[in-house]
């Protein structure tokens, strides 16, 4: 749920070149069946071994090239359909450019192409679809601060300990979330709505989750479980932002303080 909210937020912010075509070409698109997907994954796995042993030295472990061309940006690779372009280059080589021929069987070519396809898909997802890629940033990479300084900040200047406790709500927090997720959550949690106290003219107060407050109308999901709404001009509204402290702190963090807090929270295993 929170992940979805985050995706939506990012999609809204990044809605730049319009929805990406990678987002799908509308109805009618069908993905592979689970059996086909498993077969493709197995072929890609076999292809990876072939690639690492034979191709990576020149084309790079990550396919971005080296002595040989970058395959991520290669027009030939991008236009390949089931090995029709890649196959002949591999089996015949490019002697004029220093690429030897590899006497692979059609099955091996097929596995190699499956691997290259999977790498291209991963690369494209990584770059184009916000949140569509795996959260594969390792904790070690983010934990560059001082756990001690982070702890001091947590209990001191930041005021985190006014609401949170490393042995209470945050016990084992680092085990629950992967690194970038944990960092975003402590900086500014998503999916935490404002609450409000609404006072109609008769003075009988309503408390609940704020759903709408656009200057024209006010709506809440009341603590009584019912939906309530009023014209804004008829009521007094007091909004409570449970993230106000996060918002205030967010504007003050130095990058070092962010790294320190992360490094500290990462010790809460």
């Amino acid at each position, binding site marked *: 749920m929170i992940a979805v909210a*985050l995706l939506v937020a*990012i999609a*809204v912010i990044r809605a730049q070149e319009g929805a990406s*075509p990678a987002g799908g070409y509308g109805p009618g698109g069908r993905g592979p069946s689970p059996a086909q997907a498993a077969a493709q994954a197995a072929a890609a796995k076999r292809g990876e071994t072939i690639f690492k042993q034979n191709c990576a030295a020149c084309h790079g472990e*990550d396919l971005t090239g080296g002595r040989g061309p970058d395959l991520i940006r290669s027009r030939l690779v*991008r236009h390949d359909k089931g090995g029709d372009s890649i196959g002949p280059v591999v089996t015949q080589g490019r002697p004029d450019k220093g690429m030897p021929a590899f006497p692979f069987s059609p099955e091996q070519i097929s596995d190699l192409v499956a691997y290259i396809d999977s790498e291209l898909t991963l690369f494209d997802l*990584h*770059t184009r679809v916000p949140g569509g890629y795996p959260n594969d940033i390792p904790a070690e990479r*983010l934990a560059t601060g001082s756990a001690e300084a982070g702890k001091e900040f947590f209990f001191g200047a930041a005021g985190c300990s006014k609401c949170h406790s490393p042995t209470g709500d945050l016990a084992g927090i680092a085990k629950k979330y992967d690194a970038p997720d944990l960092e975003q959550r402590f900086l500014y949690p998503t999916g935490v709505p404002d609450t409000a106290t609404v006072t109609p003219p008769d003075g009988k107060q309503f408390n609940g989750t704020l759903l709408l407050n*656009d200057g024209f109308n006010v709506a809440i999901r009341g603590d009584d479980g019912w939906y309530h709404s009023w014209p804004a001009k008829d009521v007094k509204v007091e909004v409570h932002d449970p993230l106000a402290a996060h918002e205030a702190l967010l504007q003050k963090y130095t990058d070092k303080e962010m790294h320190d807090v992360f490094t500290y929270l990462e010790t809460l295993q």
Partner: protein
Amino acid sequence: MNRIAPIMAAFLMIAWAACAQELDPSILAQPPTANWPTFNGDYSGRRYSPLDQINQNNVGSLSLAWAFQGRTPSLETMPIVVDGIMYLTAANQMWAIDARTGRQIWHYQRPGGVGGGNKGAAMWKDRLFMTTPDDALVSLDARTGKLLWQIQIDDPALKAFGGMAPLVVKDHLIVGTSGDTADLPGFLLSVDPMTGRIEWRWDVMPKPDDPAWKTWPHNTDVVTRGGGMTWLTGTYDPELNLLYWGTGNPHPVENGETRVGANLYTCSIVALNPDTGKLVWYFQSSPHDTHDWDMVMTPVLFDGTVDGKPRKMVAQAGKNGLFFVLDRTDGKALVSEAFVPANWESGFAKNGEPIPRADKEPQPDGVLVTGGVGTNWQAPSFDPETGLFYVNSRESMGVFYLTMPGVHAEGWAGRDFFLSSKSMMKAIDYRTGKIQWVRDDPGRGGASGILSTGGHLLFTQDGSQNLIALDASTGKTLWHMYPGGSMNTGPITYQLDGRQYVVFPVDSVVYAFALPAR
């Protein structure tokens, strides 16, 4: 009156009627009234119409004249209206509808899906043009919606895609391209609207004989790889015969170490000669961008006075949160000012360009960045009567990670996550860059385009999805209506048979509002 005159008038009427539904490109130089014949209404990009039938006194009684159901994924189209016919687009689709009634005249659909969005059509004489998700440019017969020709702009196998609305400049069709998956170089094309023949191509990436070549390192081939996408419609000054265009971010997007230097002509406003495609001047509004801050936002053209001197100007409110006013004859900066808080720059250089902070480039362990996505492609507006530049802005904080360090990086090479953000509409005094008023928006989304009119009104959508009309001088709300969805593009206006319409595409529905019919 002599006896010949009525006969002459009748002849003229017949001659006019014979070509009435064609678009004569010379009307694109006039402020829009009866028509909204191009993406921004006219060449200037002000998105200002002098129409005043709907004004501050009567806007409260606006009522729905008609609605058109697109039955398609959310529309991004800016409708164009030419002689009573409205043309709407979506990915691989175009409609002609009656601008009086909303009734469909024809619908064009080409192979390919309907996801991906399309920002609008262009018209020249009796022909229509649109770009497509597979980065083609198609030309249709405006009478029937039948395909006349199509050309490929760039290679969809390399994840190039289309969607921008082409711009007609005299007898040229100016077309840009999108794509930020793999590294791809951006460019603009001038196309012959009759035949689809490419007349010139201007490349965002410089050639070795260009001084801009020195703004890239040459220990790798990064200068050939690109970025600088041209995915939003530019503007044109017929007197100076200059075409103004904003360019997108360099690649790899969030790795700056592989492309040390300013990286011209990415994230720039460029002025080109539309007949030759030659660069006349440039201003780099975001040098060495590492945060995906495409600076394609509309270069808005207007005349006025700065420091007591009359000036021809071009202004831009950018994705990087900065507002610029330049002399559009030579590109010299007159005003450079932030319109949202920004921590990624350390002020402005003498030439008015911002100085990016190296320590706010994405890092493997993350950096906190403000200022970005200060606004997006949804159009701003400039009202010549108030002298205010209106922009739907966003104040946000993001954390940026470098995930692919080193000089082999390509593509995105990083990740960014936006944490909190607040949207607000701002009115900027172009003389100083100072904010004149802010409409604080309790909603957290919303970034629709803006229209200003001679009725002293602004039309847009707020962050809670209300369509709103505001007092152009103060930002006070004068009319509001919840249409049940999000406007991902901007409103337009036109007057037909003495009745002014204001049109809002919302999700897949197009709503036309007018004063109650008498």
